[in-house]
């Protein structure tokens, strides 16, 4: 009997063995360099290029071998390019410029496609197309005060607009225009669970930008803080559930939302409490002097939780379809407080635990640190004096925890995971690292070191450095001038984004990234693995604007041209390397509606379409449906083609639009 069992066992053995993956191919593991020193060949290169040991370590820290990915993604505002720039850190490679407020031909954004047209129409100003913008402050969506990788918002300072970008496909889904102000700056910042996106005025005007002479500045000009309600499911800002709070005409600047112990509050700096109205041509002090007279401006302290209750109770006025809480109501309900702050400051940044607000003095060499606990105590004690508008101004000494002298021109602050803050010094053109006090360090509130940067740093960004949980890794100094850093490319110079390693002591400057596509103001840096971007659209026939199947999706074999009098509707597919149909014959004056489905499912198999003389440019990513419509008002023969080099027969992927007289 025993050998019967033996046969059974051997059969089972065969089963197990053959069950193993027979097709597995052998992969070669990259071999790490052994030993302590670099190989001689590498040393020879370093010597030939004159690289110092610091250069070599900088190169080794930043180099990403081909095919490997960056640890972090950085979202940089594109300034007056109107775009949002995505770059990898530490390689500092630009990965994408996302079209936001301004048409962009490669992405087929603003050149006929229905989805981009709908988004851009949300940004009309006074009903008119407005194709310039100045993006400033991107804000990644947050859950419990930490980035969640789902959305990113960005403001247009020039026209007071806010945009929503979906991080599944890195495309702009919505633009909203603030109906009551024409310029913002304290935007965008999100509340810790992204319930609201905060937008605050920069330059005061009468609300709704109606005409009023400047000598009526104090009575008619106003600021506004707007809390745009965000519907995470829909991925849209909902104006009906949003509200604004009227502010004095103090030229509010950057804001930050409170978190943890300061959750429910928003803090914004300001810099024209002088209420200067300029007019250098009339012998008045120019704005730059007029707004810089006082030693103190006002930190605005706004209780948005309470404002939400007041809005929900209906204690608002409606102005141009937006609910507004008046300044008087805001004061009465305990929504709005001020605290003196030196002097025309820029950033108001909340520490990771939410205990403090750090105000960077700009024209004052200090950062001034306000304690949330002390603010709440001063409010409870009514330790205040009213400003000219009756708004309580809290006692400076009662609310300030500390001041730290850092150097000239402190602008903006970020944090690490070890109780340090990093503040940009514009005039000193340096980054200051300093130590927070309790509960971060028993002995704190002191400067640790400064690192020169090249040149004129505005904002800075550290890895997740404005969340409840900073990573303490990379820091990027967003420098306004590059002067001599790069090879000359004419008088318009690129900006210089400098990568700094803050995990070492002292900090080490690693890399200069030339930014030749815009002027980043602020950036945020998120761990790349928090974002789960699609490689291709989830389904063939996708409508990216609504993130659902498109009613115009056309399957292979269902391509057709429908004619109804002068209405021509085309249902087209695109696949390597042809469109179906290829020949479109219409009569002059026909209204042509044209839907194209990219039926590809392969990664990167994007097709484009440009129609000469008709100003059409589309990009159809794998699975996407794009639609356009136009009146064929020019007769002639128009050869159109796929603009993406999609295959070896890319040039052959074309068609004719024949418009008969």
């Amino acid at each position, binding site marked *: *009997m025993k050998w*019967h069992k033996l*046969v059974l066992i051997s*059969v089972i053995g*065969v*089963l197990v063995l*053959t*069950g193993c993956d*027979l*097709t597995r*191919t052998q992969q070669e593991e990259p071999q790490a360099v052994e030993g302590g020193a670099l190989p001689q060949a590498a040393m020879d290169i370093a010597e030939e290029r004159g690289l110092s040991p610091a250069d070599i370590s900088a190169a080794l820290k930043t180099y990403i071998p081909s095919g490997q990915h960056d640890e972090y993604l950085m979202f940089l505002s594109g300034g007056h390019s109107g775009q949002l720039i995505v770059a990898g850190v530490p390689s500092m490679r630009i990965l994408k410029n996302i079209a936001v407020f301004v048409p962009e031909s490669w992405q087929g954004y603003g050149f006929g496609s229905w989805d981009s047209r709908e988004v851009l129409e949300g940004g009309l100003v006074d009903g008119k197309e407005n194709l310039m913008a100045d993006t400033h402050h991107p804000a990644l969506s947050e859950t419990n005060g930490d980035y969640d990788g789902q959305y990113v918002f960005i403001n247009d300072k020039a026209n007071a607009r806010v945009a929503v970008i979906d991080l599944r496909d890195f495309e702009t889904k919505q633009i909203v225009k603030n109906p009551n102000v024409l310029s913002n700056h304290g935007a965008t910042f999100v509340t810790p669970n992204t319930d609201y996106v905060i937008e605050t005025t920069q330059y005061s005007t009468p609300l709704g930008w109606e005409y009023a002479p400047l000598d009526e500045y104090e009575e008619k000009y106003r600021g506004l803080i707007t809390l745009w309600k965000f519907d995470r499911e829909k991925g849209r800002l909902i104006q009906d559930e949003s509200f604004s709070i009227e502010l004095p005409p103090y030229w509010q600047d950057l804001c930050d939302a409170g978190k943890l112990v300061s959750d429910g509050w928003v803090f914004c700096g300001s810099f024209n409490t002088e209420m200067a109205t300029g007019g250098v041509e009339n012998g008045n002090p120019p704005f730059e002097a007029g707004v810089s007279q006082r030693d103190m401006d006002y930190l605005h302290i706004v209780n948005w939780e309470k404002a939400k209750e007041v809005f929900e109770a209906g204690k608002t006025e409606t102005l141009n379809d937006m609910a507004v809480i008046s300044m008087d109501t805001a004061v009465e309900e305990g929504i709005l407080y001020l605290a003196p702050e030196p002097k025309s400051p820029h950033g108001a940044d909340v520490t990771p635990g939410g205990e403090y607000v750090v105000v960077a003095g700009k024209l004052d060499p200090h950062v001034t640190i306000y304690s949330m606990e002390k603010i709440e105590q001063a409010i409870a004690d009514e330790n205040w004096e009213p400003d000219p508008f009756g708004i309580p101004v809290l006692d400076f000494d009662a609310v300030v925890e500390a001041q730290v002298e850092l150097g000239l021109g402190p602008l903006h602050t970020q944090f690490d995971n070890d109780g340090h803050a990093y503040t940009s010094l514009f005039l000193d053109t340096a980054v200051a690292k300093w130590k927070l006090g309790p509960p971060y360090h028993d002995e704190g509130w002191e400067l640790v070191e400064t690192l020169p940067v090249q040149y004129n740093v505005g904002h800075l960004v550290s890895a997740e450095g404005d969340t409840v949980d900073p990573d303490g890794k990379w820091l990027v100094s967003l420098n306004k001038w590059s002067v001599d850093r790069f090879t000359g490319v004419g008088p318009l110079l690129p900006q210089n984004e400098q990568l700094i390693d803050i995990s070492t002591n002292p900090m080490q400057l690693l890399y200069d990234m030339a930014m030749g596509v815009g002027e980043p103001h602020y950036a945020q840096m998120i761990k790349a693995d928090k974002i789960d971007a699609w490689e291709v659209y989830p389904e063939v026939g996708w409508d990216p604007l609504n993130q659902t199947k498109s009613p115009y999706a056309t399957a292979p074999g269902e391509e057709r041209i429908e004619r109804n009098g002068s209405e021509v509707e085309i249902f087209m597919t695109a*696949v*390597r390397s042809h469109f179906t149909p290829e020949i479109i014959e219409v009569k002059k004056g026909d209204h042509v509606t044209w839907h194209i489905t990219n039926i*590809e*499912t*392969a990664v990167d198999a994007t097709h484009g379409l440009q129609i000469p003389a008709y100003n059409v440019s589309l990009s159809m990513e794998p699975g996407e449906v794009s639609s356009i419509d136009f009146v064929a008002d020019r007769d002639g023969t128009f050869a159109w083609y796929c603009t993406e080099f999609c295959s*070896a*027969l890319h040039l*052959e992927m074309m068609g004719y639009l024949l418009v008969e007289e």
Partner: protein
Amino acid sequence: MKTESFLGPRVPSAEMEADRTTYLLPTLLLASAAVLLIASLFVPYWKMTLLAPQYPKGLVAKTYVNRLTGDVKEIDGLNHYIGMRPLGEAASLEKSVSVVSIVVISLLVLSTVFVHTRWALLLALPALLLPFLFLADLAYWLNNFGQNLDPTAPLSSSIKPFTPPVLGRGTVGQFATVAAPEIGLIMAFVASLLILVGLYFHRRAYKPLVNASDEIAEA
């Protein structure tokens, strides 16, 4: 033919009591083979992986007995450049009858548990040959598709008709192809092995009984 001469003698219960293993072993082996074959309907039999620089993850087509899965659409899209017909058009008859056929031949194997004569060999034969028939049919279709390329296709001058290997490596254009058995085919081969071994023990168990009953009949 009499039912008895087809089914053969039953095992006397005293004999069964005395030597249970002898009679259970072939039953177990042959029944396992039948179960394996049925189970193999739900898993792929064969796959081809296409490797090219612009497809770092490769493209894969997996063949079940009745369908194709994987990157078939993408492979068809590429194949149109060389004029190959869509893969879904291959072996349509085989695909339509495969599930029923395999269920039937599995039941035939199972029936040998009750059939104790040499007819058992014939009943188990289709299942025994199944993996070889699968490979032969696959080879036929690979050859048929590779050899019948549309001469008007864009790449017809650089890619000549070819025969992709049934197992192992090949090349088409910039693609390296790797054809390999999948778990279903392995299950079918294991079933064949189980049937062979099972028939051996089947014969060992029942042959003496058949002989004995023949002798009784002669006497």
